[in-house]
């Protein structure tokens, strides 16, 4: 099969967009440049470049195995310390599974712009994407949703629907809704945000930034977010 640089790079991009490990091939310098640019573009999706708990677990297991194979390393780092370290870090990185994570990928053209509420995450070009039905989010509840491009938390506060980023502004851990406390907990560093995105408390050297708000609306029986 003969294919052109454009075909090979398109295949590489397809793999990235489908979150697969890309197929390997001998690339020209021009192709490598294009592929690196593509990696940068994929990383621009909010939350795309953050590891999940399983990935962190595997990384820490590999490091522990490295120590097993290299006893000489114990001179400056003991295995027990490493296991304690990674045990702590891995436990801190527990990421909750979202309630009925909704992934939509409608290929529809951009709808009318607007929505307001935020200048932080309002993209130049985007579209309203349905993320959940109204019935899935009763009053007094928050739930995590993903559009594939963005991780968000949608909130029903006494009938008023709003949305904020679902990613902690400190190190990017995924937030977990705590409906009883009307807050969003970061599992990594004991930080919590209110439903409006404001920081409630934190255990860090400096206060993290508030969560960016995401334009939201109710359209029929669907809750929609304005995302790129």
């Amino acid at each position: 099969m003969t294919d052109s640089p454009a075909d090979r790079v398109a295949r590489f991009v397809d793999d990235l967009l489908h979150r697969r490990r890309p197929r390997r091939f001998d690339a020209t310098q021009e192709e490598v440049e294009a592929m690196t640019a593509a990696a940068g573009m994929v990383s621009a999706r909010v939350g795309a470049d953050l590891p999940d708990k399983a990935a962190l677990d595997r990384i820490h297991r590999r490091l522990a195995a490295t120590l097993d194979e290299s006893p000489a390393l114990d001179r400056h780092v003991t295995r027990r310390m490493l296991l304690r370290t990674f045990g702590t870090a891995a436990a801190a990185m527990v990421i909750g599974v979202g309630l009925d994570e909704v992934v939509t990928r409608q290929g529809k053209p951009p709808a009318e712009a607007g929505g307001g509420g935020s200048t932080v995450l309002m993209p130049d070009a985007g579209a309203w994407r349905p993320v959940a039905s109204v019935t899935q989010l009763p009053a007094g509840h928050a739930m995590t949703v993903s559009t594939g491009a963005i991780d968000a938390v949608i909130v029903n506060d006494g009938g008023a629907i709003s949305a904020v980023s679902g990613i902690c502004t400190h190190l990017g851990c995924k937030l977990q809704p705590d409906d009883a406390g009307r807050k969003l907990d970061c599992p990594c560093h004991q930080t919590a945000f209110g439903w409006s995105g404001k920081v409630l408390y934190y255990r860090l050297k400096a206060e993290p930034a508030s969560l960016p708000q995401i334009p939201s609306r109710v359209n029929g029986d669907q809750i929609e977010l304005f995302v790129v």
Partner: protein
Amino acid sequence: MVSVTELRVVGSAEPDDVRGTEAAVYPDWESVYEDNVVGIYQLVFRKVGNAADAEDLAAEVLMQTLKTLRLPAPVHNVRAYLVKTARTVLADHWRRYYAAKEAAAELQQVPPDALTSPRNSDAAERAQRLLALLPDHSRRILELRFLRGYSVREAADELGVTESNARVLQFRALRKAADLELEVLR
């Protein structure tokens, strides 16, 4: 376990607990790992664009550093060393799997202080700035593909071109984006 009383409630933060990282020291691997594992993962993800490779490469960076780094060491030095190691590991990746001879030059763009601001907003802002600098047709194909998740066929339909032309358009747009990144944004 940390009790709630130890948490800092907004509005009553004690300023004397805020320290600059420049003068700080990593006493052990616990602090190096906790402070940097997510940042290293993000750094390499932004150069390879997929989670499977990013995980392998982040682990490799940490393993190589673990074998050679002596602690305690200043935070600034440790992070600079991690970034340097990441560059080498990334260059090896492109060379091994894509026969790239000059990937190292591309990676010189990774600044030594890359781990001090690992937030995703950097990558998003960078992409938006790049897109804004591209000619219309180049920007359009990249927006459709990367920001809206269109397939090549859907993007081709939207642009009124053949699939083959859309692939060529995408390739050229990415090349332009790479050139711009080197020339304008560094």
